[in-house]
């Protein structure tokens, strides 16, 4: 278990708190500065901070500011202990990410409970985020690997040293990050950047359609050869747009844009479409610049590598095409980073774990809420649908669950039958016994229990006889396998069919989990609509 850090300038207060929290390991700091020093050293060790507001050297609010700058506040909950009631301070503290307040004088039970609850909550959330991040990471890793393999095949044929794709991806990432710092114009989220970098791997996929003699020709290409070479961008895009599946996936859309337009020029003199300025999608603009930088700084069959300085000079002078001025500025700003990647390669894997976790946390926050909300609405809708169909078909439905031992009737059924909506332990319920007659109830149950997983549907007929004695209606029932019944004298007869589906677990051997059932009036057959006797239940489970 992690430790609790108590930050308070009064030794007495620290001691009292430490005594109240004797079941935890305690760290102490006398002021904000000491607390930050401890966080620097061992943030991972600390599972909760109790923070005083007014302290020498550095006060509580300053500690919070630093914690939120370093994102410590995302992982370490902070309880502020304060005798300050000022709403301004309280608001500021909450804005800076404080989890809870405890007012002085603090009560031992309150301190213990709050600390315990918050630690439990955070560790649960952390487990969830970790679990999610792990799974996400695994999936991401697999799909990245497939893209890498594909990109490598292209590269292999191209006789490139095998680093070209990785380099272009790395340069793309550096430039995109610089661009998103510089402007909001292109609305680049972390997820977009990650997608574009992945998609960048496929920028030259169209080259597999170029004959070997042209692709790997050591000397200058003739004009005719060059025209053929230029078809690789449109060809690559066509391969992607002809995909019979996944065409709506963002990664496919980005890959398409990059493959097709990474040889366009800002001044409109590129190919294949002669797009100009920001008509060229930003993903393609960035990959284009990354591609040029890598082509210049690496050896090729037709040329030796230029130095970083020479390459920069050539790009900025416009010797290798024209680019978005903002991107050129990004290139200049990040040139040391670019040079470092060129010289050392880099942490190849663009998405580090931190990013994935942040992403996972976001997803968890929004998507979980979204989907549970959606689920609720769907449930509401299902209930409405059921109510409606029951009303129009005049039928009654019920379900029974073994695990809760609860029989529940739909709203309509309960009203029609004059029974409560839920009944616990129906086998021994007196209301049901009174309604059907005790022996009938037993018979119903034993018929249902006669079902098995291969024959999960049980059906039989129910005849209701109504006789009138002294102006009072008396009900009686007859269970039968036939839809015909001998009707007692002076009685009115109504016939229903009870159809039950028993439900079973998926394990071997399956065990019985409950019943869903419907009581329908017998005797409807209207042309193309089948009567209840003709329903085929094969394969329903």
């Amino acid at each position, binding site marked *: 278990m992690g430790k609790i850090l108590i930050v308070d300038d009064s030794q*007495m207060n620290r001691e009292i708190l430490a005594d109240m929290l004797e079941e935890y390991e305690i760290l102490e700091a006398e002021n904000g500065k000491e607390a930050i020093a401890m966080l620097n050293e061992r943030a991972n060790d600390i599972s909760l901070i109790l923070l005083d507001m007014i302290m*020498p050297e550095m006060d509580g609010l300053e500690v919070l500011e630093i914690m939120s700058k370093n994102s410590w506040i995302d992982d370490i909950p902070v309880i502020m202990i304060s*005798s300050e009631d000022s709403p301004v301070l309280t608001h500021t503290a909450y804005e800076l990410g404080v989890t809870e307040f405890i007012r*002085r*004088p*603090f009560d*031992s039970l309150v301190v213990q409970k709050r600390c315990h609850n918050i630690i439990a909550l955070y560790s649960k959330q952390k487990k969830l985020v970790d679990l999610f991040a792990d799974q996400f990471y695994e999936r991401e890793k697999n799909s990245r690997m497939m893209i890498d393999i594909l990109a490598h095949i292209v590269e292999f044929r191209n006789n490139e040293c095998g680093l070209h794709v990785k380099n272009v991806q790395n340069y793309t990432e550096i430039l995109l990050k610089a661009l998103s710092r510089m402007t909001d114009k292109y609305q680049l989220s972390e997820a977009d950047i990650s997608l574009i970098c992945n998609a960048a791997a496929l920028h030259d996929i169209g080259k597999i359609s170029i004959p070997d003699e042209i692709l790997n020709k050591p000397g200058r290409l003739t004009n005719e050869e060059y025209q053929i070479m230029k078809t690789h961008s449109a060809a690559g895009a066509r391969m992607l747009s002809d995909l019979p599946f996944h065409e709506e996936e963002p990664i496919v859309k980005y890959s398409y844009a990059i493959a097709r337009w990474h040889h366009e020029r800002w001044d409109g003199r590129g190919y294949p479409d002669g797009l100009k300025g920001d008509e060229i999608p930003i993903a393609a603009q960035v990959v284009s610049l990354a591609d040029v930088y890598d082509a210049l700084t690496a050896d090729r069959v037709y040329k030796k590598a230029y130095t970083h300085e020479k390459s920069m000079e050539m790009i900025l002078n416009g010797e290798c095409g024209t680019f978005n001025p903002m991107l050129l500025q990004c290139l200049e700003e990040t040139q040391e980073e670019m040079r470092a990647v060129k010289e050392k390669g880099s942490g190849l894997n663009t998405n580090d774990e931190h990013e994935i976790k942040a992403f996972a946390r976001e997803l968890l926050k929004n998507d979980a809420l979204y989907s549970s909300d959606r689920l609720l609405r769907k449930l509401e809708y299902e209930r409405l649908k059921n109510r409606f169909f029951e009303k129009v078909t005049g039928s009654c439905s019920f379900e029974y669950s073994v695990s809760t031992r609860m029989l529940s009737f739909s709203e309509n059924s309960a009203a029609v039958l004059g029974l409560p909506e839920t009944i616990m332990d129906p086998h021994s319920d007196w209301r049901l016994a009174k309604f059907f007659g005790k022996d009938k109830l037993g018979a119903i149950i034993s018929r249902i229990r006669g079902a098995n997983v291969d024959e999960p549907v049980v059906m039989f007929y129910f005849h209701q006889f109504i006789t009138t004695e002294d102006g009072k209606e008396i009900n009686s029932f007859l269970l039968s396998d036939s839809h015909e019944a001998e009707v007692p004298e002076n009685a009115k007869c109504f016939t229903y069919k009870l159809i039950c589906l028993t439900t079973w677990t998926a394990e071997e051997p399956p065990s019985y989990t409950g019943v869903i059932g419907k009581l329908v009036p017998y005797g409807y057959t209207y042309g193309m609509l089948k009567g209840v006797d003709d329903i085929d239940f094969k394969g329903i489970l």
Partner: protein
Amino acid sequence: MTLKEFYESIGSDFNAALMRMGNSEKMLDKFVKKFPNDKTAEELFRSLGEKDYQLAFRMAHTLKGVCANLGLDNLQKASSDLTEALRNEVAENTPELAEIVKTEYEKVISALGNLD
């Protein structure tokens, strides 16, 4: 004098103080007995003497918090008033309020001398 008698003698609520310590008389006893060794009051009076009002504010604030936790009600009230007098700019009645803190502090200390 028992702990309960001590609290009564300084006009404070023994039961409330005890409850905050999780009803542990031992714990309350331990911390109350540590109170005379706590340097906060001493620092408060010294900083007032040196007219270091910023430090005095912090010390008065800390004293108020400690007294609140130990349930030394009168001293807590007095140091709370002094804290407010020192908060933004020094109020005129600061010397009188400081005197009250001193008197209440000495009452607590002398009563503690009689504690078993």
